[in-house]
């Protein structure tokens, strides 16, 4: 890239220093080549593969297979898990972000919590699964503590870390900090004066939230929710190491097809992956659209 920069030096001549021209796009070729080879091409290949049978001929059978009850079920479970964790994690993350930014807490707490959120939102995958096994697993510390202190066995009461809610509880651990990071700028944009003004005009807290707070935050909240949804939907590592593939989430199913664990049928795998790309694509489109609306308030 520096070489192409020096190459351009002579050609630039007396033209305005920063006037963009078509030739300047050439400098982006290395990047576009790389992105094409390792992002677009693989994704395109999955798209093509989902329309092919094992012999490589055109077929729509893979999409018919997507309608198999167990696959529909796995999509529904994954969507439910993503929505539940995005909602719970989002709500609590919002409360925490509001508390540290506008709640009148000492300033150092905010910088501590934002650092911590950076760490915790990256603390996903295998180590997170281990942490929750050590905490809420069958012999986990909190499980044991509840048993010895209160004689309350959560596993007798139907809880299992390897069930839907166990997984949800674990996902929320990275959803909350992510929410704090995403929503903080929007909360920063809410001026104290708005609240003071509405209080001076006699508005109650509820009125303030319904007529000012929520309308202003709504687009940002929706955008954040979509991101959290996608974040949970695409997560493979945490589910893989927590359930060992017992719950049939979509990413787990795709992984199984790649590894050839069960019913090895790569083309069905491509169709599964294609379905996932569609859902993620739709959410990112929705995200960009909502984000555009959200940025209106931030001016």
């Amino acid at each position: 890239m520096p070489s192409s920069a020096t190459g351009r030096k002579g050609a630039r001549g007396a033209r305005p220093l920063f006037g963009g021209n078509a030739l300047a796009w050439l400098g982006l070729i290395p990047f576009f080549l790389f992105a094409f080879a390792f992002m677009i091409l693989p994704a395109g290949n999955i798209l093509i593969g989902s329309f092919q049978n094992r012999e490589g001929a055109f077929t729509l059978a893979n999409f018919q297979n997507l309608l198999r009850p167990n696959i529909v079920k796995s999509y529904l479970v994954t969507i439910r898990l993503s929505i539940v964790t995005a909602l719970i994690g989002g709500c609590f993350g919002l409360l925490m972000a509001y508390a540290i930014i506008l709640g009148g807490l000492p300033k150092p707490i905010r910088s501590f919590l934002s650092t911590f959120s950076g760490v915790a939102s990256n603390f996903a995958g295998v180590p997170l699964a281990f942490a929750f096994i050590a905490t809420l697993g069958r012999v986990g510390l909190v499980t044991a503590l509840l048993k010895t202190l209160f004689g309350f066995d959560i596993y007798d009461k139907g809880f299992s870390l390897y069930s839907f809610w166990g997984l949800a509880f674990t996902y929320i651990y990275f959803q909350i900090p992510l929410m704090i990071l995403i929503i903080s700028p929007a909360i920063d944009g809410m001026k104290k004066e708005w609240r003071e003004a509405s209080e001076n005009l006699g508005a109650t807290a509820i009125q303030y939230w319904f007529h000012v707070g929520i309308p202003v935050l709504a687009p940002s909240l929706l955008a954040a929710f979509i991101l959290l949804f996608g974040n949970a939907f695409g997560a493979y590592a945490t589910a893989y190491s927590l359930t060992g593939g017992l719950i049939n989430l979509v990413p787990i199913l795709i992984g199984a097809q790649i590894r050839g664990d069960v019913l090895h049928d790569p083309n069905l795998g491509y169709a599964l992956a294609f379905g996932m790309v569609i859902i993620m694509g739709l959410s990112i489109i929705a995200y960009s659209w909502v984000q555009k609306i959200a940025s209106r308030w931030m001016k």
Partner: protein
Amino acid sequence: MKNIKRTALSWLVLLLGLLYFMLPLVATFLFSLKGKKGVLSFVAYEHVFADPQFLKTFFFSFQMSIYTVVAGLALIIPTTIWVHLKVPKAKPVIEIFALMPFVIPPIILAFGLIRSYSRPPLALVTTPALLVAGYVIIAFPYIYRSIDAGLRAMDLRALTEAGMSLGAGWFSLLFRVVLPNLRTAILAAIFLTFATVIGELTLAVLLAWPAFGPYMALVGRDLAYEPAALAILSFAMTWGSIGLIQALSRGKARPGTVVAPGLAVMAEETKPTTTRSTTNGLP
């Protein structure tokens, strides 16, 4: 009176949150100390460090993360500078690419890479190069956001114009003017990439590499206390990386931009938002 109530509520929310965050960490730490029956000891950690596989896989992932950092920075820094200086029109296109890893999560990426590169003439699956390429794609949003934020924070045009009128060529402009000013952003990109790649599971396991992530997953299947020790160690590593970024970027008046890793980096898209957050504290 109202303010006091609000502050009290805030404390309550904060404490509840901290309880949820800290409990698994404390529990995991205590659990990791129970390796020897009846006493608290670091025996699980000793086991972890004594396992030759631990060092081997960790070193492998460490190597991969260095390759990823080098390749990623070499590709993305010049591209981002070029976009800022020469083709601002390309910015929306690059932004779309920065969102793509979200639409194509690692599990899909792995699948596509295997399908695209397992047959000759491009049988790259058996070389670590494909793994590194995948990691560069995964790390791209982090690196791009950091560098982009760094470039926005300085007056790139003024700096280059000043440099050129003083007779600097492109080479010395890049290495003696722009890059030194990007130091913090580059370090942030490095640590974020490192924190992401070192324990990465999905690509490593599906492309069948003996990396640290798959090793941890394997240990988790067979043993009880060692996984807890590994979780604590890797939390400490993440904390170390992110903490370093924080410490390095302290004093810079751009909070939130560099710190926010993961998808949060994407959310930082609206420029007005970030400039607002810096001015908001002022009366």
